[in-house]
Structures are given as structure tokens and as C-alpha cells.
């Protein structure tokens, strides 16, 4: 470097020369770009804007009225209704439970009998039937066909019984 070169004392901004190329080419490219964005505004928009802005600012300051979805005075009614519903549901369920229990018991008993677990003699059963029950038996309405009767007799009667009778 020439030691005798005069120094002007000027300085450049930081990274000036490093950024120079990029900025130069940007400027060259920009020459071909439109100067304006092409936007328009409504007539007297800025003239009316101040009023509009103040109104918005004032509105933003107003506390918003909070309307409770569930006013307190109705709370008592709602609580009563809810209590009634709960009690009703509990009672209804217990009744149904009894009915269910009865049905369950009957089904269990029927199964027990069908499986032959009930060793009741015919005569034991008749001890539970009184004369009134026998009188109420409406055997006349039961119609047995002749064929059914014959089959029953052939299957259930033996010769000795017939001879004895």
C-alpha cells in the first residue's frame, strides 16, 4: 500500500461493501417493478376515520354486560326438580328391582322343577289342594280328543289294572 496516500478521514457504514452488490442488484430489479400497489380507498375515508376510531376505542372500554345463563332465582326450582327426579328414579328402580326379583325367583323355581329336583309325590301335591279348589277345577272345558285319550290309556294303563277294575 502507498504510504504517501492521502487519507480523507471518511468512514463507511458497517458492512457497506459486503452488502453493496446485493443492494445494487435489488435496485436494478426494482426499476422494472410497478411503483404503486394500485390500491384505492373510499371517498372521504380518512376524513371520517377519526370519529370511527374514537367510537371503537370508547366501545372497547365499556365493560361487557354479563348475562348469567342460569339466574340465581331459578336455582331453587332447578334444585327441587332435580331432587324429585333423583328420588323418583330411586323409587322406580327399587320397584322394578322387586319385580325383577319375583320374575327371577319364579324362573328359578320352574327350572328346579323341570330338572326333576322337586321330589313331590302326587299325593303330597293334593294335600295343598282343598275341596274348594277341586270344585273350581273346570274339567268340562278341557277337551281331549278321542285319539289323545286312547293314546294315554294305551301308554299308561297295564292289563292287570284293567283286569282288577
Amino acid at each position: 500500500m502507498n504510504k504517501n496516500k492521502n487519507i480523507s478521514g471518511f468512514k463507511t457504514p458497517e458492512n457497506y461493501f459486503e452488502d453493496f452488490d446485493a443492494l445494487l442488484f435489488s435496485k436494478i430489479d426494482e426499476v422494472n417493478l410497478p411503483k404503486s400497489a394500485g390500491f384505492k380507498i373510499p371517498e372521504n375515508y380518512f376524513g371520517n376515520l377519526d370519529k370511527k376510531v374514537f367510537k371503537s376505542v370508547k366501545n372497547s372500554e365499556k365493560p361487557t354486560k354479563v348475562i348469567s345463563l342460569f339466574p340465581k332465582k331459578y336455582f331453587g326450582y332447578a334444585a327441587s326438580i332435580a331432587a324429585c327426579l333423583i328420588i323418583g328414579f330411586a323409587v322406580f328402580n327399587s320397584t322394578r328391582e322387586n319385580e325383577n326379583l319375583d320374575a327371577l325367583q319364579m324362573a328359578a323355581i320352574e327350572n328346579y322343577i323341570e330338572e326333576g329336583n322337586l321330589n313331590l309325590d302326587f299325593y303330597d301335591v293334593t294335600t295343598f289342594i282343598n275341596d274348594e279348589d277341586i270344585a273350581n277345577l273346570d274339567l268340562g272345558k278341557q277337551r281331549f280328543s278321542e285319539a289323545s285319550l286312547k293314546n294315554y290309556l294305551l301308554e299308561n294303563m297295564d292289563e292287570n289294572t284293567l283286569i282288577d277294575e
Partner: protein
Amino acid sequence: MVEEKELVTALQTEAAKESAFRELVSQYKERLYWQIRNMVLDHDDADDVLQNTFIKIFRNINSFKGESKLHTWMYRIAANESITFLNKKAKRNNISIDNVKDNAVRKLESDVYFEGDQIQLQFQKAIATLPERQRLIFTMKYFEDHTFEKLSEILETSVGGLKSSYHIAVKKITEFIKTQDETL
């Protein structure tokens, strides 16, 4: 024009706040409007964002500490409100922010508040392809003519970073327009 320092003092004084705010709106409404409009494109959207910006300024003026200039602070609020608006629009419509921008540009063709020609329309389409931050840097530099130093204060980004981002944006836009012209 009221000096900024005096304006800030008045804005932070209860008795003078309202009249100072009127002065503030009067001084800055146009500059802030155009900054916002260049981001959101639609006039009605820009109007909404501008009002939100002033509301935010009014509400938060007492917490303004003077670490930056008042107008720098306001431009920053406007920039953030613009991007927030676009993000909210995308979320509300369950679409990407790119789709929001594409829709906005498509609407320009029939927008009564757009008087640009085909070249300007292509220009807007090209700008819309930029990522949000880069779009903000480009529009604020190109249309609002802020210096990089001023932009650095507003956007709290280094001057070098801004220059680089701006240069890349210009390149992308030029390429886009060139490609579109070749296609036609």
C-alpha cells in the same frame, strides 16, 4: 405538528389523554393505514386492523416506556396486528395462511378499491408468495420507503438481516413476474 415527546406526555396524562389521542390519530392514520393495507390487501380488512391498532395503542400507552420512538412503537403494533389478523383469518376458515393470501389476491381482480393494471396485479401475486415476515419487510421498505435503520428499530431485526431479506424478496418477485410473463 405536536412534537412526539409532548404527545407522549399528554397521552399519559388522564386529563389530556383524549385530545392527545385525537392528535395522534390525525397524524398517523394514513401512514398506519397504508402499512396495514399493503399486508392485508382488502380495504375493509385494513380498516378493521387499523382500528384494532389504535385501540391497542390507546389501551397500552401508559406502559410505553419511551425506549423506542412513539411512531416506531405504533408501526410495530400495526405490523403485529396485520400478521395476527391474517393468522386468525386462516384459523377461522380452517385454511393455510397461503390460501388466505391467494384468496385475497384473487379478489383484487374484482375489487372496486383496486385500480391497478395487469402488471400491478402480477406484482401483488408475486408479493403474496413471500413468507409473512419477508412480505412485511418488503412492503414496508418498498411502498413506505422506510430506511433499513428505521425498519431495524420497528421490526427489532438487524440492518444486515433486513437488507438480506429485502434483496431475496426482490429477487423472488422479479423471478415470479418473469415466469408469469414467459407462461403468457
